[in-house]
């Protein structure tokens, strides 16, 4: 089982470091011990930066001894999805193409995390380029779920989900272009927020219009602390939002009684939800009711069309980014990834502009629905499926059924958070999801925190 300090939430770990009750070095060493114990069987990390993490920890301990004010994430060990560049630390995207790439700069999110005192402990596993399906032929074989070692972790931010839930890091970050941070959050008993589009800058990464950098955490408060550190305007990023960032952590406590939550019942009932997903979702709704929320059933249109729109834009952007490398290095790509990456080659500019236009229409429609019905958020399951294997059934995977709840809100840009909601028959966790108004990420965190305070999901630890 995991050792004591690694069992603490990120916010508790930071408090102990700030108060001098535990040294950052001791905390990092505990996490490294956990990684050494668990990673050989879980494959959660591709690269572990033990020396760099200990060096960062020593610097934090020295600053505290000198009386300096420590950052809001001081001493927190963070795993970074290996598609996000880290200065001086190998970033492979789990591809042979980038097997030895050492970035010269941090992505802006990583830079912000470091400035907040976070310690980057390593790079977490993913599907090659965060795309297609996990494969044994990837540079690093796929991660296994800490909740059932015979099951693959749900991805593509699979290593991030596995590392956080197995207590190998205080928190991790992933990316979410169609649900690929919320889906692993749900499948690892975690909180994972896809922020409003533009809130967390992608500066330093590829230009992907609808993939948001997302924290995966064990508590809602940890999620707020992470998002607050990651968010902020980057003038060089044309997608970055210039507005003021709320103090998410300070303002996370709220009386949510009377808050109206929409349930798109017809849409939810039309999905091929597994029984455990239905059970967890209904239990989630009952919990919201017990917290005083008013549940409003309503008719939500256009989710399938928005999913298709997001699918086309994602494919187009992926091919645009890889077109030259596919031609030059076809054999270095994984055999599944390279086929998936080719899909965008068959789209015309008009196809992509049509998809963007449908996405814009859905964004406006969904915002109007929230306003006209006076809804704080809508609730859905995170995924219709309780295991990664089920989500890859032929004919459903290629149509994105596993992302039927998540991907519409990538093209729309609305913030969306997956919360722990139960466990399936195989022992794999099942999530439920709340989606809210543009730039009202705080409301989602407040709802999640109220829920977190009255649930015991964050105390559950995989028996490994």
């Amino acid at each position, binding site marked *: 089982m995991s050792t004591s300090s690694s069992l603490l939430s990120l916010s508790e770990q930071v408090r102990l470091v700030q108060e001098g009750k535990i040294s950052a070095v001791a905390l990092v060493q505990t996490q490294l011990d956990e990684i050494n114990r668990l990673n050989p069987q879980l494959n959660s990390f591709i690269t572990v930066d033990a020396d760099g993490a200990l060096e960062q920890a020593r610097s934090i301990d020295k600053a505290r001894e000198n009386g300096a004010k420590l950052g809001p994430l001081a001493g927190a060990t963070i795993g970074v999805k290996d598609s996000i560049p880290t200065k001086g630390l190998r970033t492979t995207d789990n591809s042979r193409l980038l097997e030895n790439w050492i970035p010269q700069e941090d992505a802006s999110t990583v830079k912000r995390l470091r400035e907040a005192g976070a310690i980057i402990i390593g790079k977490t596993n993913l599907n090659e380029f965060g795309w297609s399906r996990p494969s044994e032929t990837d540079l690093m074989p796929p991660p296994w779920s800490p909740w059932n070692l015979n099951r693959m972790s749900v991805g593509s931010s699979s290593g991030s989900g596995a590392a956080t839930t197995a207590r190998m890091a205080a928190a991790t970050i992933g990316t979410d272009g169609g649900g690929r941070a919320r889906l692993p959050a749900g499948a690892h008993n975690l909180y994972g927020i896809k922020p409003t589009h533009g809130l967390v800058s992608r500066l330093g990464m590829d230009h992907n219009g609808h993939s948001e950098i997302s924290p995966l955490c064990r508590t809602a408060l940890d999620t707020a602390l992470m998002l607050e550190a990651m968010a902020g305007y980057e003038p060089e990023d044309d997608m970055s939002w210039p507005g003021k960032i709320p103090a998410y952590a300070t303002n996370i406590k709220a009386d949510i009684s009377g808050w109206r939550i929409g349930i798109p019942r017809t*849409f939810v009932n039309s999905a091929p939800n597994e029984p455990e997903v239905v059970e967890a979702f209904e239990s989630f709704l009952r919990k919201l009711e017990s917290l005083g929320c008013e549940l409003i059933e309503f008719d939500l249109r256009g989710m399938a069309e928005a999913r298709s729109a997001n699918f*086309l834009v994602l494919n187009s952007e992926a091919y645009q980014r890889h077109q030259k490398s596919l031609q030059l290095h076809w054999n270095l790509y994984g*055999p599944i990834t390279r086929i998936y990456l080719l899909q965008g080659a068959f*789209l015309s500019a008009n*196809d992509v502009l049509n998809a963007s236009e*449908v996405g814009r229409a859905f964004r406006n429609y969904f915002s109007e629905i929230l306003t006209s019905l006076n809804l704080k958020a809508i609730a859905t399951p995170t995924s219709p499926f309780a295991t990664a294997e089920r989500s890859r059934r032929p004919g459903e995977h290629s149509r994105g059924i596993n992302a039927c709840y998540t991907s519409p809100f990538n093209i729309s840009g609305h913030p969306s958070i997956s919360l722990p909601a139960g466990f399936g028959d195989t022992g794999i966790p099942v999530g439920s999801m709340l989606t809210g108004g543009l730039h009202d990420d705080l409301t989602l965190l407040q709802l999640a925190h109220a829920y977190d305070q009255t649930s015991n999901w964050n105390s559950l630890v995989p028996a490994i």
Partner: protein
Amino acid sequence: MEYRTDEQVEARARQIVPLSNGDIDQLKELIDGVRTAADLMESLIQPFDGEIDVSTMSRTVEGNR
């Protein structure tokens, strides 16, 4: 979307990269999905004086009204 048949898809793919026959079979299946999605998008676009009306779109995961 311009590529309507398997032959067109194969010809386009072989212009770009050296695919095996197994690759081609997988790709054709995927492109069916891309074509369906692209055709759906085109069907939703309105004449110049119209707007896309999401309130008349589908209510189900499979895209049924």
